[in-house]
């Protein structure tokens, strides 16, 4: 009887330690992830509103042009491949239809640069939304070649500044090349 009791006590202790004994860590902060499809991708929208942190299709984006900061397109020519740009970049003959960014009346210009200082993937992962240092990685002195971020590859790190002066830094997490391809990235904002 005594042995049975001890065995039961051991089992009870096992479950209590397993389920309640460990101190819970604080919840992980929510990551900003965007998966943008290229011009004929039908699975993912290709237009990102940084302020809303939401992705829209071309037709949806047409209706909220002033909120769209970043778009994805594919173009093999010039080595663009899967690239990020902005409505104001002047991408032409890529998107089709009346809602094509060429026909927009409000075309926000987001600028893209490589970071001003070396930053590793681990460094990026340790950054938090709102960190003051994010702004310093954007190269404000670069005045050309900064209207798109081209040929994106996994673990590439880019910075950007939206028309409303929101600074961001992004890390590419997944890419599929082609007109039906996509780019997925995590971004952090200041």
């Amino acid at each position, binding site marked *: 009887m005594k042995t049975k009791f001890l065995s039961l006590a051991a089992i009870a202790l*096992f479950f209590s330690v397993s389920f309640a004994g460990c101190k819970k860590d604080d919840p992980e902060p929510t990551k900003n992830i965007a998966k943008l499809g290229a011009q004929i991708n039908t699975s993912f929208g290709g237009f990102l509103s940084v302020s809303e942190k939401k992705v829209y299709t071309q037709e949806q984006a047409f209706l909220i042009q002033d909120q769209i900061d970043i778009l994805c397109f594919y173009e093999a020519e010039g080595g663009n491949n899967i690239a990020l740009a902005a409505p104001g970049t002047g991408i032409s003959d890529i998107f089709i239809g009346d809602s094509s960014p060429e026909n927009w009346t409000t075309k926000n210009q987001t600028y893209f640069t490589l970071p001003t200082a070396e930053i590793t993937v681990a460094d990026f992962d*340790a950054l938090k939304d709102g*960190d003051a*240092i994010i702004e310093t990685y954007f190269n404000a002195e670069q005045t050309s070649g900064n209207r798109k971020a081209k040929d994106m590859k996994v673990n590439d790190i880019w910075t950007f500044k939206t028309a409303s002066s929101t600074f961001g830094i992004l890390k590419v997490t997944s890419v599929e090349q082609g007109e039906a391809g996509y780019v997925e990235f995590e971004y952090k904002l200041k």
Partner: protein
Amino acid sequence: MNRILAIFTIVIFIVTGCKKEEESKTPPLINFKLGEYTNDGDYIPAGGKLVFGIAASGGGSPITNLRVQRIADGVTITEIDRGLYIAEGGLDYDVNAVKLGADQEIWHFMVMNANRDSAILTRTVYLGEGSAYGPIKHFESLKIGMQNNSEFPHFLDVNTGDLYTNESVAGNEAIIDVLGFVYLTGGIMSPTLSCPQYTSVPGHYPIVGGWSVRNSTLYDYNAVDNDLVNHQDFDNATNDSLLVVSFNPQSASGNCKYCFTGKIVPFRTEDGKYGMIRVIHADQVPEGYMELEVKVQE
């Protein structure tokens, strides 16, 4: 046998039941801000303004220390060594200083996080031709009350010479640089100059403890203790040259005791302005007051 097995099971689960997650050991990140700042390799004349903009992230851990050192022709001067606790938003800081007469100054900016990992940046600045010492403001007589004085205001903005009472300081806390009190130290009642950020100040002025912005003014106590600035030089100072060279950050504190009548106190404000205070009068009772003559960079 079953009993042994049961006890063994208990011990095993107590020891291994909680898996401790590995802590992030990413070092801090530090970077220069872009804009109207001093660049690497700049030539700046003696007295010229140096401004370094830095931003830092703790690398997943809180930032706990900022240290800024100037190596002027091989001599290391610690300009800032400040304990911090910045868990969110990182550090965004402008370092204001003045070029000394050294041919070469190497500036190091170091941040440390709670894991005691650190990151450092460096700027080198060279001595330019001529000098760029700037104009100063002169306030001939400012009277501040000690902690129990009800006749004079207690709080001073050295940039304007404006004085504030416990009531009128509301809304102006962020511009207060200097205050005074008396306390017993070393066996004597010491007239003391201090600043809102100094730890013991709320003990003398409880309202300061509730301020959201508490500026740090650093006083060169060594210059005070050893009378390193003479009165004639103070009288003759018409630009900020003497103000800059008289302040030694190596012997600076936010609290300067023994500010007796006749003492001259070099200081530097939170926003990097150098100045000197001549104590015209200092009482040694909490109901007393100090009369100050101030010269400060414009």
